[in-house]
């Protein structure tokens, strides 16, 4: 229960924001927080977490907030890499060959979700392959 006290504010923010399927539990010294919500609320939760535990140095939280659960096939996605182009790969892993690229801020289409990390996407030029979801942001 000690961790739920330490991160009370974080849990309160998640509760107040109406995070879907919010699940908070403590096990072996780690607080696990799961749920699904919008990208905005996810950002708010992470900023709160970072404030309560600067630089995430304590290692006592695993927060898995999915902000893309509701994104349907056919949705438009914006490439949000830091600076480089986004790799489009033959299969869902970095071990698979790169078969195409999407430019930063280019808008692509979601064809299907392989898993939470890899989505099958298609560019307007017709290139189709797998990309890392970390760099794809739904166009709202």
């Amino acid at each position, binding site marked *: 229960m000690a961790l739920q006290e330490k991160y009370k504010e974080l849990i309160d923010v998640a509760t107040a924001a109406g995070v879907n399927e919010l699940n908070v539990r403590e096990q072996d010294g*780690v607080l696990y927080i799961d749920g699904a919500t919008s990208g905005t609320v996810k950002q708010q939760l992470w900023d709160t977490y970072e404030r309560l535990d600067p*630089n995430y140095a304590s290692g006592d939280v*695993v927060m*898995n907030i*999915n902000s893309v659960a509701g994104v349907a096939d056919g949705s438009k996605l914006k490439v949000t890499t*830091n600076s480089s182009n986004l790799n489009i790969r033959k299969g869902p*892993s970095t071990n698979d060959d790169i078969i195409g690229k999407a430019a930063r801020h280019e808008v692509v289409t979601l064809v299907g979700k392989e898993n939470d*990390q890899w989505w099958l996407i298609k560019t307007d030029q017709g290139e189709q392959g797998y990309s*890392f979801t970390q760099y794809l942001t739904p166009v709202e």
Partner: protein
Amino acid sequence: MALVMVVAFMGATVTGCKNKPKDADLKTAVETAIQANPKLSASGVTVEKGVATLSGQVPDEATKEELGKAAAAVPGVTSVVNNLTIAITNVEIAADSPLAIAVKDATKDFPTVTATVADGIVTLKGELQKANLQKLMMALNALKPKKVDNQLVIK
């Protein structure tokens, strides 16, 4: 009264003998004490002038310490030389582990970060710009790790 004295004297004598048991008896006692632990494999015990030397293989440091204490607790053992070795457990091949692959994917754009995965715990070492830290943590937390041990030096 005389009888009591005699009994007391005998008791003292017996106790006196027990304080200096033979090395061979000590060896048996130490073996009994440590072999009760199922984690010990291929053990060897030698005792010389009350000094017990332990050899063999154990799975971890905790077991090694535990057995050392068990040997030291045997009456008559004056000290313990703990030569038990810790077995190297099978090295997990990173490529076979879905978590390790996912962690590799999530960290590949941060070449200054070294990530290792063991027992579900992701350990981060190296350094990282503060601006990238949250993005990396978000990605790693989504992989369902047991824990993320962040030892990064934040720039």
